[in-house]
């Protein structure tokens, strides 16, 4: 075990897998000489050279398209999109090729690409460095969508994603990169895709969340405990596939689900979870399903603390859920 920040854990996973598997290459803007704007690819160029650590033109569609072509020819490319706010330039490649190469070719070809990209707000990044676009990709058959919230999970889920034969959009909550650190296993360490993590057990309310809002939810749970309310916090970690068994188990126990994410509410991933709970667990419910999310606006700069699902907003939802 070594103490690592979130960014360091990503870097450690990349180095470990590049040493282990020579098919793994990384490509993206400013990832080589500069080590990535968040330093996630630091020192990789020196160790693996420019044919495996590829500084690309500023060209999101080409980065993703080239990664797909590389993967079809047997490599395991990891494409970095500098901010997920810029991923739309490569959107057509993601939905029309990455998600569909296997289907279009009836598995003659497949593209095991991992697209790593920072997600979310809380860093005063404004409209174009703070967005949470995960729902677009969760809506696209053929892609898997992963969002870790701890350094350990970041490493373990990234290794599993690289080794997975399906394309993965790997969101990294950027406000955790350097603020979150913990003991991370050295060397081999994988976390299975599609499994949620029970972060805190509780009996009264289930907060179902992912990404950086796991910590806001924990703080809200702590404060709720002081008021005598026992809150369970579930970190989904994986949106496609998502861990229905874990959600179901928690909702059966508490009957009061509160879904939290930074992305705007309407047609956000929370809507999918809410609908599935309504379809399958409505008789377990003791209260309406509540969503605490970003608002249906572009991401605001100066009032981002109000926009984000902060602990105050989550606690308010918990109180509403138990009828206070």
């Amino acid at each position: 075990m070594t103490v690592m920040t979130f960014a360091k854990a990503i870097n450690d996973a990349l180095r470990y897998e590049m040493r282990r598997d020579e098919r793994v290459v990384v490509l993206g803007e400013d990832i080589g000489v500069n080590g990535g704007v968040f330093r996630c690819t630091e020192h990789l160029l020196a160790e693996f050279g420019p044919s495996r650590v590829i500084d690309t033109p500023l060209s999101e569609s080409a980065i993703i398209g080239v990664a797909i072509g590389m993967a079809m020819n047997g490599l395991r490319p990891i494409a970095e999109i500098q901010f997920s706010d810029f991923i739309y330039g490569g959107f057509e490649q993601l939905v029309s090729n990455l998600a569909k190469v296997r289907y279009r070719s009836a598995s003659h070809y497949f593209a095991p690409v991992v697209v790593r990209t920072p997600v979310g707000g809380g860093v005063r990044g404004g409209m174009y460095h703070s967005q949470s676009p995960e729902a677009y990709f969760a809506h696209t058959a053929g892609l898997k969508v992963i969002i870790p919230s701890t350094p350990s999970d970041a490493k373990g889920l990234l290794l599993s994603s690289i080794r997975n034969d399906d394309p993965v959009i790997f969101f990294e909550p950027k406000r955790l990169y350097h603020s979150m650190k913990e003991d991370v296993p050295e060397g081999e360490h994988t976390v299975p895709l599609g499994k949620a993590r029970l972060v805190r057990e509780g009996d009264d309310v289930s907060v179902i969340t992912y990404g950086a809002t796991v910590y806001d939810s924990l703080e809200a749970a702590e404060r709720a405990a002081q008021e005598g309310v026992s809150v369970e916090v579930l970190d989904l970690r994986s949106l496609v596939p998502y861990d229905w068994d874990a959600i179901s188990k928690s909702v059966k126990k508490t009957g009061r689900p509160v879904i939290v994410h930074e992305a705007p509410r309407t047609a956000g991933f929370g809507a999918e979870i809410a609908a599935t709970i309504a379809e399958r667990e409505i008789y377990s419910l003791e209260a309406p399903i509540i969503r605490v999310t970003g608002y249906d606006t572009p991401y605001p700069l100066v009032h981002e603390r109000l926009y984000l699902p902060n602990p105050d907003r989550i606690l308010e939802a918990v109180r509403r859920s138990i009828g206070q």
Partner: protein
Amino acid sequence: MGLAESLPFVRTRVRRKLIICNRIDGHWGWYEFIAVLGGKVLPDPEKIGVSSDDLLKMYKAMVLTRVLDRYILRLQRMGKVALYAESLGEEAVEVGVTQALQPRDVVFPTYRELGIYLTRGVPVAEILDRMTCTVDDPLKGHEFAIFGDKRFNIVPAPTPVSTQIPLAVGYAMAAKLKGEKMVVLTIFGDGATSKGDFHEGLNFASVHKPPVVFVCRNNQYAISTHISKQTGSSTIAQKAVAYGLEGVRVDGNDVLAVYLTTKAAVDRIREGAPPVLIEALTYRMGAHTTSDDPKRYRTEDETQSWAKLDPVSRMRDYLISKGVMDEEADSVLRSEVEREVAAEVEKVLQKSGPDPLVIFEDVYSDPPWTVLEQMEELKRMIGIQRVVRR
């Protein structure tokens, strides 16, 4: 030495049409229009270095493409094919570029590529299985009009135009990294050159120089939009210049010009030369697809003027004039091809369609529970609803 200069036998015959643009070496010059079957006196096969076998192979592939193309259209009119993009008039481009490749070279085509499939040796039966989506369809009825198969190193085309271009660049980059002596060829239409992925792909390739050749089949129409409304450039070839790459323009109705130019490019790229953009100027004699009516946007006169440059007839006349085949051999070949295709069409019409559950195959390597659950849902529904097959 530029690609055009490397083909000395065509240099005397290239000046059918000259277009001014800014050349790669930085000064104003001529953009040559490479043609072999263009002048009054055509070069002998020995002079252009193409064997009789190869000449006949290309001719046969063009004839087969034309015949099968007509049959697939008829099958579409019978309701047996969902949608089809015909190759009429563009056989020389499809056959010529493919003949220039080795079997290990990989093709990233667009959706109008019957000649590529046939030149690669894909059996007529497999193409018919594909177009009519039978139980033996190698792509399981997932999509229309396209063909792809790893055994033939053909990647099935995406319908959103130009998006295969960065994939071809990536495939070639992986080949370079792995030390494979493979060349990747991607082909796209004139409309594709207005899209970002054409420019992002060429730009990326100009920096990393993987073994890739870009071919634009400029058939002058993107559905109804004429090339003059597509770009302000006088050629597509000159767009390569901005990326520091060589661009050449060939007569796309001249299978020998297409073949020789592509082969020269591919041979150089295989030895490490940078990527090349080849513009093959041709004309789409038919409709865009079976859902299109070209009478709405172009005149019969225009189409007829291009009929005089029919690529199949030009190659036929050349082969007969040079004694590579005679009229009788040609008519034997044509009736054999017709018979072969007709027999395969008969067979394919007897086949049933793929299992409904193929809907859920090839989405993931290990499908999420959501997909598996939906498959079970369809299984239950199949029992209680009429499932329309093919």
